[in-house]
């Protein structure tokens, strides 16, 4: 009797194995397969600041209660400005320029508000261009200057500063940011 049961057990196990094992081997194989091929031409932008602009925007010999003080490289009324930016020759798109300041000019706890600090821009320069009459006050968010410049054009700049009457003596500093982006794009703060 025991032998019969053993034999039946082996047979049952064998049949069960045949029926069950292939079910365990079931697998889902997806039929979707795709390849995307794309070719994109790289955009390259590089700018260079003029040697004078690289060293910063400096105002010497400021006096209290004066307006429209020229930055040292302005040469306003006497020749072209020493402040300019150009696009390097390997740049392959036109560019837009933006400008902003990080905050008021500061000396310790004293400040000169940005509403007293101006710039003007132009793609040409001479004794009167960029012009004082076209000046705009700095802000802490980017303002667009000239747009769509190619690698043969320069962006010329001049800077002026008003010093309010009674302004405490000191060395006032801030940071001015220039940004170049592909023409038509927004500058990013």
């Amino acid at each position, binding site marked *: 009797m025991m032998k019969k049961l053993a034999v039946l057990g082996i047979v049952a196990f*064998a049949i069960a194995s045949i029926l069950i094992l292939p079910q365990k081997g079931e697998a889902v194989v997806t039929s*979707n397969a795709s390849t995307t091929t794309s070719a994109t031409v790289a955009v390259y932008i590089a700018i260079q600041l003029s040697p004078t602009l690289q060293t910063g925007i400096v105002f010497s010999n400021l006096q209290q209660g004066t307006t429209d003080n020229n930055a040292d490289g302005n040469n306003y009324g006497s020749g072209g400005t020493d402040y300019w930016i150009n696009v390097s020759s390997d740049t392959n798109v036109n560019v837009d320029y933006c400008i902003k300041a990080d905050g008021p000019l500061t000396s310790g706890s004293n400040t000169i508000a940005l509403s007293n600090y101006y710039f003007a821009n132009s793609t040409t320069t001479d004794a009167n261009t960029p012009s004082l009459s076209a000046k705009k006050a700095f802000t802490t968010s980017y303002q667009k200057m000239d747009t769509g410049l190619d690698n043969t054009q320069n962006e010329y700049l001049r800077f002026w500063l008003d010093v309010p009457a009674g302004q405490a003596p000191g060395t006032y500093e801030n940071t001015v940011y220039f940004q170049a982006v592909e023409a038509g794009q927004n500058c*990013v703060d």
Partner: protein
Amino acid sequence: MKKTLIFLAVFLAFLSTCRAQTLGIGYLTTSEEVTAGEVICIEYGIGNPSDKPVYAYLDTLGDLKNYTYSVPEPELIPAHTMYAGKNLEGLVVQKICFLVEEFPEDKCPAWHIKGGVYPKATEVGGVNQTGSKVISSVVAPLELIVKPPWSEWRSIGKGVLCGDYKCPINQECLVRENICGQKEYKCAFVQRQQIPIILIIVPLAGIGIGIGIYFRRKK
């Protein structure tokens, strides 16, 4: 105090060591699609049109700042590193990575995160007189289009409507969902794996032996 007090200022002799650096950036994309929870890395090329080598690395601006996963180490960008005119050739290539860990439901169906990538010089110029330090940058705009993560594909059977159509008779319909309530369907073959021959022979042999023993005992 005199009304015409002069603000004294002195140029530093070493102004040349404090010059603002100018760099270039090359890019192949301004928009990338990414799934929340997955890291995406994008390559940019850095150029240097100046006469002076500069240490620089890629950094981000705008809303992308909050989702920057890793920025490269500062790397020397040799003087006169120029774009060779094809892909990013000629430039020093660096990779910057982004990760949006979670997808908020109120951003459905896709979350657009905007900003820019730019080469940041480790050396920043300065003035020591009334005026401004100058920092210039060239920025590659970048928009990440973030999609919510999908669930795993699951089968909803054969012969059922699979999105807008029915699958072929030998395929099953699979579906996956996301938190925006979107569903994607696809048809898939359900393939049975090849069963090793030994898994067939051994049970069959067992049956044969069992039957043989049974009949021999019966005799």
